[in-house]
């Protein structure tokens, strides 16, 4: 298998976090890598259902893991009614995701803890940029006709270029679901590869919109094609489909990440998005990553949560750990 252009490890990423691995440059389209993929849904569901029951993370471990989860959050607002005002608030929260007194109690106040990135629509990149100035927090923009992707490829590429130009260092693209449903894998590869090229230095997260791909086998194949085409991350959902991130879907995608690494040596990141609202869920996903891929995938260069409400629940759990008292939402500054 072609290992093209593997760059030396450990380069410093824009937001200051250590980038331990070389970027996925993609490989030529190889139908052999996907044609025999078979996913057994029932067996996948069985494994997924015991992820959260085979491991338990409690007490100081829970606090530490939840803080780690925060650093992996793409703090997101993707609404029709987004304004400069609420984006500024979101960015402020991204810089200071947990109350300082809580961090102090956890002896974590010297860590400059931030979320992984802020994720917005194109129109709000410049506002986010202003608000995040000096913070090293990356700005992710959803792109390519998000969420449905029902525009021409040329329009998609143009959107990417504009967002990169506007200051987004991460681009969350959506794939053409139709190409999956009709089995046009080579065409899907070409589209994603072109988008990757348009991203340039910006990292590309490829949203599969798994809720619209019908089968787990399709999810697995689409994951593999997206990685072959050079995705830095593969991401479950836009948050706008009727079914978003689930553990079974995630399990299938990360098994493909593992298979792709075995084939090429490239480590590709994973981002579940949509529906992850509780600290307990966050822990389940972290356990899933640790068990199936290993500790490297517990850092934000290879793992992100796409979420808006999750942070609030984590803050409450952290306060509970510190004080022993159950916390209320209003005690934590809103985004």
């Amino acid at each position: 298998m072609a290992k093209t252009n593997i760059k030396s490890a450990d380069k410093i990423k824009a937001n200051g976090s250590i980038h331990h691995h070389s970027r996925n440059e993609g490989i030529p389209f190889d139908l052999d890598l996907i044609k025999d993929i078979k996913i057994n849904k029932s067996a996948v569901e069985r494994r997924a259902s015991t992820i959260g029951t085979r491991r338990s993370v409690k007490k100081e471990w829970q606090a530490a893991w939840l803080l780690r989860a925060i650093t992996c959050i793409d703090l997101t607002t993707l609404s029709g009614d987004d304004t400069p005002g609420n984006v500024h608030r979101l960015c402020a929260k991204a810089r200071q995701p947990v109350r300082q007194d809580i961090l102090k109690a956890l002896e974590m106040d010297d860590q400059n803890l931030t979320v992984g990135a802020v994720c917005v629509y194109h129109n709000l990149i410049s506002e986010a940029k202003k608000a995040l100035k000096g913070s090293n927090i990356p700005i992710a923009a959803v792109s390519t006709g998000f969420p449905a992707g029902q525009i021409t490829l040329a329009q998609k590429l143009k959107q990417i270029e504009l967002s990169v130009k506007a200051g987004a260092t991460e681009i969350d693209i959506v794939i053409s679901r139709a190409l999956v449903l009709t089995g046009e894998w080579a065409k899907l590869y070409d589209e994603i590869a072109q988008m990757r090229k348009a991203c340039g230095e910006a990292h590309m997260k490829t949203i599969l919109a798994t809720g619209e791909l019908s089968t787990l086998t399709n999810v697995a194949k689409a994951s593999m094609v997206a990685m072959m085409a050079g995705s830095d991350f593969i991401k479950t959902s836009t948050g706008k489909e009727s079914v978003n991130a689930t553990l079974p879907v995630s399990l299938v995608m990360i098994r493909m990440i593992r298979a792709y690494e075995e084939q090429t040596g490239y480590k590709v990141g994973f981002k579940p998005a949509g529906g992850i609202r509780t600290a307990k869920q966050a822990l389940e996903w972290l356990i899933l990553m640790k068990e199936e891929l290993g500790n490297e995938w517990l850092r934000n260069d290879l793992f992100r949560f796409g979420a808006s409400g999750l942070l609030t629940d984590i803050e409450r759990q952290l306060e509970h750990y510190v004080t022993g008292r159950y916390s209320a939402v209003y005690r934590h500054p809103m985004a």
Partner: protein
Amino acid sequence: MKVKEIFETMDYGIAPESSIVAQDWLNKHKGQFQLFIDGKWQTPTSKKYFSSDSPSTKTHLAKIAEANVKDVDKAVKAAKKALPEWLSIGAHNRARYLYALARQIQKHSRLFAVLESLDNGKPIRETRDLDIPLVARHFYHHAGWAQVRDTELSDYKEVGVVGQIIPWNFPLLMLSWKIAPALAMGNTVVLKPAEFTSLTALLFAEICQQVGLPKGVVNIITGAGDTGAALVSHPEVNKIAFTGSTEVGRIIRRATAGTGKKVSLELGGKSPFIVFEDADLDSVVEGVVDAIWFNQGQVCCAGSRLLVQENIAQQLYKKLKSRMKKLRLGNSLDKSIDIGAIVDKVQLKTISELVEQGIADGGKIYQPDNGCPKEGYYYPPTLFTDVSPSATIAQVEIFGPVLVAMTFRTHEEAVALANNTRYGLAASLWTENINLALDVAPKIKAGTVWINCTNVFDAASGFGGYRESGFGREGGLEGLYEYLKPKVEDELKSHPVLNKSSVKANKKSKVTGNEAPNIDRTAKLYVGGKQTRPDGGYSLSVLNPKGEVIGEVAQGNRKDIRNAVEAAHANKKWGEMTGHAKAQVLYYLAENLFIRKEEFANRISAMTSNSIAVAQNEVDLSIQRIYTYAALADKYDGHVHHTTQRNVTLAMPEALGVMGIVCPEEFPLLGFVSTVLPAITMGNSVVVIPSERAPLSATDFYQILDTSDVPGGTVNIVTGGKDELTEVLAGHDDVDGLWYFGTAAGSKMVEYKSADNMKRTWVNYGKFRNWTDNKQGEGREFLRKASQTKNIWIPYGE
């Protein structure tokens, strides 16, 4: 540990489940438990107590009473005394008690889970998420069966007092598998838990008190092998249900031989886990984890033999090894472990020795360095590759976290390897090809076949073995019969019931004299569809009741039985025919018998001195009986069980294989037809020993078989000394089932000798049926005895 440190390492911490409530419960009993007999805690007559320890930490948990012969007798008497009231309260009230037990178990589920985990060493995750929920489900499910017993199973009644002996690997779950169906069907129970793991059974005794179960309905006696032996041999126990080793199962079968006690045995296994090339390999890996590293591999149906298609073997081994590195071992109450402690140092030693043997036999061993805890009895997950079927570890049940891998080239070879074992408890097969899955599943000799899943259980599905994995089923409709007996059994007589039907001579039928047939016509044996000379070269005279020679038959011997069994095995055709096709052949038999009914009547009359009219009646009844089985050939079918997971659970009745049939002495033709027909209707091939005194109807039947398209080898007939030939059949390891209708002594011999290969037996203990009575002489009960249920689990969803 500092949060900052963990934030960097992202390690798991310790997450212990609290044992405070369980400890309180032990303390409440002052760390010492008595016997639960007649609804009360009674001190053992033996005055002896033994220690129960926690295998995770080797710490003492409690002292447990040891029941001796007198205590066992007390418990059995209590159960017997309780029986009339338990029956008189009726089905609905029994259902309410079972429902109450289910509820009460659920209410105390965490206490049960913690206690079980402490006592057995298995992970709290398993007791909490699997064992205890399955226990509650078992009682709920059987509360339902209790309610409908009298309507759904109206031809059956309770067995009486049931003795139950259960193992240490799933202590409370095995208790529920035993007690729930027994009580639901109206029996009372004396149960002995395994000496390593008595505690949850004792907590269950308290639950029985709490729900107000009538005293004596459930008795729990603790102790070791001697206690069990006393229970098995107690004359007032009507049935023994045992789960444990094949070795002990065999002892029980021999000890109960001829006593008339019903016996069900759920024994060992060496179950194949078959992976075809098109399987979802990442899911297969998790399947293997569930198969052999569940409960430390101390599972009778553990998928302990991994059979992998050769072209994917290396890939799968690689995946397995990297998965094994992630398995965490530790204290059973730690909520973050996959593998707990082995139940006892004895078991740990057995495992270690077998692994040493495996290395000595040339197997390639892999054990990840996961760090076994120093305290307690732990054994690391172990994978052997490059193992040949002849290696000890490929054959014997290890009962530990040790997986033995072999490769196969073709589907046929996979089936052959899967069946290359004395056991037959379960199998798991992995393929995305439903054609392949449903082709292979029926070919595997195992009571449960899991497709793309493994170690999945539910109360609605039957579980139990083929071959030396024992007989009988637990769970589902099929499991209920172990705790029931047909009401007609009460009508059986201690002397032969002869044809005293007041049949008047049918005036229309032309009777052509009843002089004996020509003495020169000596019947040979019938083997493989051909008449063959007996190996010994001797013949026996057949006498009529007056002592006159009316014919001769071949005197079969051991070798003739051997040849007949081989011929029966060689016949693959009959077993593969559809129900409809078999029915066609059976109707054809009836047709051909009808054509020759006078000849058959004359023969019966000559052998029995019955009037021609009575003999004709026997022929008529025989024709009717053949019709019954032709009718049922495509109607005795299985079920799709309502199990709780998303899957189709097919309960398929399958033939036992090769059966021996020892026909009743009375009714030369009807006795033959009544016993042979149900066996072949289910697809078995049979070796028949006809009536010794009156064998000529069976030998005359050769020509009926020849002219009716019955494939050669389906029915093989060996005439001669009944006891001598029966003993050869009973001692034949390639005979799967044996029916015997003869003396009490013969019945005992059949049961005793059959223990060696655990063949399914059905004997009459010297009691006699009225073969002219359809209720006693035919029906689904006969087909049930000629078959065994295989449950095939087929999860679905794309």
